[in-house]
């Protein structure tokens, strides 16, 4: 949903986001909605400026949002407060499931199909009843799902539903015991207000106030918007957090409607663009999967895995999108006879994600590494692993505006201080190439609401500074020249690559518009830009670099450069920039009308069927075929777009429905389930299964996790952003104004925790985990409140993660504290919650720091006792029992006795 659309909301729930401080200008729409009478609710471990401006603030224990959201779902279902007409028409609530399905209620926290050996599910039993789904049989095994996990296959379904049959068995009365509605009801039946209080630390009264506000402000005449950001994604259950939010919004009829929906606030200028036109290992542009060596040896098998025969919706045309991409890459060389050069595409064999890469660097398996405006030494979890990995390369290319920590780790990183990196022994050859800034090049960013906005160039870049466009265009040109004449088969893909972009200016800058035109797609014969993805062909007659962006260069006009002032158009502002797909501003907006095509209410009118004109009309581009009437019913043998009925609002889903229950596509289960974080201070009261059983684990001596319920690491911590800094700090600690506004790393604690540990306001303290010790100034505020969780008091600590060793203001990096454990669907790390200890005073320095850490790990039962990460509670507790106090509060750090395992890490 567009940020501006928040003004149409009657209630806004912000959870997993500190919008006022991290997306401050977008937050003006929340404030405007509030001024118009909307109720604003903020649910977060820390009271922030977002909380201060909300009507209701709810403190919550970090890592327990599914328990909270599950409680809301249970409240809706047990009080029958769902928007029934919407739920019946537009969701899969009535769909009946396979009789073999077993829920977490039956299996103590596991779904049916779990293989302990693979730590993965065989999802066959999760499917819909009836017609067998055509999903390839290889996928439907625990081995297949282990591949899904390794390849982050869930991300491929970011824009489409995985394959399910078009026709499903349904019970419109919702009474069938195996219909999704009843399954959902049973699954969440134990997520009561009492259990929410017990797990999340949210008092029952406060929880019920949220439930009442959310349900009261949803329905035919009212809508509630849900806002989240990385407070939800950076967990081992991150995808299921978002699923839980989506279930609520679907049950309450808030999806596809003005002032409703789910607003994912992404964190960087074009992070949405970096996903759509991915620089991600498992994706090609437009969410086409990178081929897997075993699953996709041929073009037909690859395309066959993207869509299924008989499936509804626009993914049925996947062949046109795929072939057009291959034509854009390899031009004349790509022909029907050679499967459009499909064999040129490199193949995945497993997990090749950024964290796997870093561990492979430590193990000496990677020779060269490019960092392109990214600072993993500070910005990624487990900073030490990042730096040690970079210290073990043949060569490293860093392209950035400033000398960031990832460029200077060999000189002045924390490991140089501890002796773990010795410059004269560090073999990595480092190239630092200065980059052009955002005003020194032209091109498009895709911001958080899928909107592409073109930037004009203001000035040429200074000195050696160049754009990435320049760097990669010329690198490719040089490599092609050096390989020219090669007869090696492996060099065909590079020699046949279309790489003839026009250049201009003193530096021979390639034309970004020419690249945008290729992204848009064009007719091969004439070069005419295509008007949209519906005109892409599967016979090689069109080329298209990213099918979902097709239309951005329609009519040969750069649509992303449109800047019709807001005063000269309506609030939807369809002539400002260009949104994918097809300039639709609000996705699934067919659902803003009832099944018969009428607005649900005058107040919430957005898109409706105009009977006289015979087409959909309204304030936005309809996210539906423009002339397909609401009463259209497909012929029995229809497939693809034709199979979408006139009330199938979810046009990218295989069954045309919004999914309350996900029968396929997710690695960790068809429904969100509360599991404790990988590092947790308490047991899971709902199930015997403590943590997400399928989470991605890297069980290595250099990536140890704090044991569950460890008394050595008794506190919960979370990390986040400040308004005045930006992520790894490379773009803010280098700016004088910003460094003056937020001059120093700090550690925020409650007065109660400060008393418990002897911390003084503005004094020093340090936070300890199995990986690192991080120091900072103590900030004692009531913004952090001790929570009563499962019969005990849980203290939470908060740290900003912007600091490092470079720039105008320097400090320890909070991301050093986290280990590497990932969400199994998308391989995003759990870096919003962990356990730790906190002590007053500064941390030890030099080799003493390593001894200090080794002592902690020994007392926690970790060193020499390497078990699975997130080791069972009992072992962690037993090993740590009775040895909880590493030193008296106030005792100067760095004077700790020497441990036997000093210097044990990094082995």
């Amino acid at each position, binding site marked *: 949903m567009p940020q*501006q659309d928040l003004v149409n909301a009657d209630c806004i729930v912000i959870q997993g986001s500190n919008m006022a401080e991290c997306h401050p*200008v977008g937050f003006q729409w929340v404030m405007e909605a509030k001024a118009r009478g909307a109720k604003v609710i903020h649910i977060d471990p820390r009271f922030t400026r977002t909380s201060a401006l909300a009507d209701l603030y709810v403190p919550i224990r970090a890592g327990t949002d599914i328990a909270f959201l599950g409680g809301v779902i249970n409240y809706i279902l047990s009080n029958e407060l769902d928007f029934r007409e919407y739920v019946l028409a537009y969701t899969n609530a009535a769909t009946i499931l396979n009789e073999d399905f077993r829920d977490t209620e039956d299996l103590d926290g596991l779904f049916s199909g779990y293989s302990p050996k693979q730590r993965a599910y065989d999802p066959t039993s999760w499917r819909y009843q009836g017609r067998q789904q055509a999903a390839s049989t290889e996928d439907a095994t625990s081995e297949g799902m282990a591949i899904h996990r390794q390849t982050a296959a869930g991300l491929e379904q970011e824009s489409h539903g995985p394959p399910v049959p078009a026709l499903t068995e349904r019970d419109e009365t919702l009474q069938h015991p195996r219909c999704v509605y009843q399954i959902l009801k049973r699954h969440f039946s134990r997520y009561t207000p009492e259990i929410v209080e017990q797990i999340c630390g949210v008092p029952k009264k406060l929880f019920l106030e949220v439930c009442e506000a959310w349900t009261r402000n949803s329905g035919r005449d009212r809508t509630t918007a849900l806002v989240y950001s990385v407070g939800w994604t950076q967990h081992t259950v991150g995808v299921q957090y978002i699923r839980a939010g989506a279930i609520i919004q679907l049950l309450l009829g808030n999806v596809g409607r003005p002032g409703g929906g789910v607003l994912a606030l992404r964190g*960087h*200028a*074009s*992070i*949405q663009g*970096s*996903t759509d*036109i*991915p*620089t991600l*290992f498992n994706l090609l542009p437009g969410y086409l999967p990178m081929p897997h*060596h*075993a699953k996709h040896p041929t073009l037909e098998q690859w395309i066959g895995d993207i869509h299924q025969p008989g499936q509804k919706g626009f993914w049925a045309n996947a062949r046109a999108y795929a072939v057009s991409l291959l034509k854009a890459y390899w031009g004349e060389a790509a022909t029907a006879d050679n499967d459009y050069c499909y064999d040129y595409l490199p*193949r995945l064999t497993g997990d*090749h994600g950024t964290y796997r*890469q870093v561990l492979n660097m430590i193990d000496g*398996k*990677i*020779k060269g590494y490019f960092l392109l*405006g*990214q600072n993993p030494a500070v*910005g990624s979890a487990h900073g030490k692993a990042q730096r040690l990995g970079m210290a073990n390369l*043949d*060569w490293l*290319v860093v392209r950035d505006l400033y000398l960031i920590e990832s460029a200077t780790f060999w*000189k002045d990183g924390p490991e140089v201080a501890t002796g773990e990196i010795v*410059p004269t022994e*560090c073999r990595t*050859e480092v*190239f630092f190439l*200065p980059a052009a*800034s955002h*005003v020194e090049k032209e*091109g498009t960013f895709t*911001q958080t609401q899928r909107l592409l*906005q073109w*930037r004009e160039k*203001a000035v*040429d870049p200074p000195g050696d500074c*160049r754009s990435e*466009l320049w760097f*990669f265009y010329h*690198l490719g040109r040089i*490599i092609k020249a*050096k390989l020219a004449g090669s007869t090696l088969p492996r060099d065909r*893909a590079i020699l046949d690559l279309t790489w003839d972009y026009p250049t201009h200016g003193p530096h021979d800058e390639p034309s*970004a518009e020419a690249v945008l035109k290729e*992204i848009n797609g064009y007719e091969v014969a004439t070069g005419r830009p295509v008007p949209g993805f519906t005109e892409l062909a599967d016979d090689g007659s069109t080329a298209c670099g990213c099918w979902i*962006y097709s239309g951005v260069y329609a009519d040969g006009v750069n649509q992303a450069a449109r*800047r019709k*002032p807001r005063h000269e158009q309506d609030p939807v502002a369809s002539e*400002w920039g260009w949104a994918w797909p097809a300039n639709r501003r609000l996705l699934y907006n067919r659902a803003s009308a009832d099944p018969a095509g009428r607005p649900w209410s005058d107040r919430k009118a957005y898109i409706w069927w105009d009977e006289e004109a015979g087409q959909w009309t309204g304030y936005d581009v309809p996210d539906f075929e423009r002339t397909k009437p609401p009463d259209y019913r497909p012929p029995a043998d229809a497939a693809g777009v034709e199979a979408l009925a006139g009330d199938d609002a979810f046009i990218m889903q295989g069954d045309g429905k919004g999914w309350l229950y996900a029968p396929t596509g997710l690695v960790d289960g068809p429904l969100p389930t509360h599991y404790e974080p990988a590092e947790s201070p308490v047991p899971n009261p709902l199930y015997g299964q403590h943590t997400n059983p399928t989470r991605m684990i890297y069980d290595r001596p250099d990536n140890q996790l704090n044991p569950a319920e460890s008394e050595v690491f008794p506190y919960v911590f979370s990390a986040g952003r400040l*308004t005045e800094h*930006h992520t790894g700090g490379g*773009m803010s600690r*280098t*700016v004088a*104004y910003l460094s003056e506004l937020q001059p120093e790393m700090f550690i925020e604690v409650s007065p109660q925790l400060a008393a418990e540990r002897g911390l003084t306001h503005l004094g020093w303290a340090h936070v300890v985990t199995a990986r690192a010790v991080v120091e900072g100034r103590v900030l004692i505020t009531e913004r952090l409140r001790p929570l009563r969780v499962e019969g005990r008091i849980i203290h939470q600590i908060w740290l900003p993660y912007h600091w490092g060793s470079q720039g105008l203001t320097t400090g320890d990096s909070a991301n050093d504290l986290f280990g590497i454990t990932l969400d199994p669907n998308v391989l995003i790390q759990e870096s919003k919650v962990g356990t730790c200890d906190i002590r007053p005073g500064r941390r030890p320095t030099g080799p003493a720091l390593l001894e200090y850490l080794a002592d902690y790990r020994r007392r926690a039962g970790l060193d020499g006792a390497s078990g699975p990460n997130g080791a069972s509670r009992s072992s962690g507790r037993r090993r740590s029992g009775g040895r909880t106090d590493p030193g008296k509060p106030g005792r100067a750090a760095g004077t700790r006795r020497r441990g036997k395992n000093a210097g044990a890490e990094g082995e």
Partner: protein
Amino acid sequence: MGIRSWIEGWPVYRQLTGDDPTGRGAAVRSTRTGQLTARTETADSMARSVCPYCAVGCGQRVYVKDGEVTQIEGDPDSPISRGRLCPKGAASRSLVTSPLRQRRVLYRRPYGTDWEELDLDTAMDMIADRVIAARAATWEDTDDQGRPLHRTLGIAALGGATLDNEENYLIKKLFTALGAIQIENQARI
């Protein structure tokens, strides 16, 4: 300055006699302020841009005089930001013009203890050689069953999310053609 103009120049006098009774506008405007000219008025050119920090996508107007960026302001035409910028966006001129910004290529040789200077063209040539060599040394043609792999695991990349779509497109296209699959982005993080 005569006594009359001295009195009439007094803010309280202007506040009481003029049309600014609350003293928040013209009444308290000094002569010096009146003589100031905004950098936005004297700029040679203005580019329509977008803030490079978070994903809200605020419109920026970038003012240039004599080839230098002199001011960056919020774009009042933007339906998203309506002319506003946060502290980071408002400081983005400093991001671009800071003396700390690195403007020359630097090179650290293996086991080196300090940076050295390097010519940009030489650096490009050296990097191209290293890519070709790493690829050759780690090339995998097929798996153990003869199915195509057509790739190298010797090269990795991690991009930030302030890259343009056009840049990401070329990065993915080139690396894919080179057989390098370990191409990642902040979007994973």
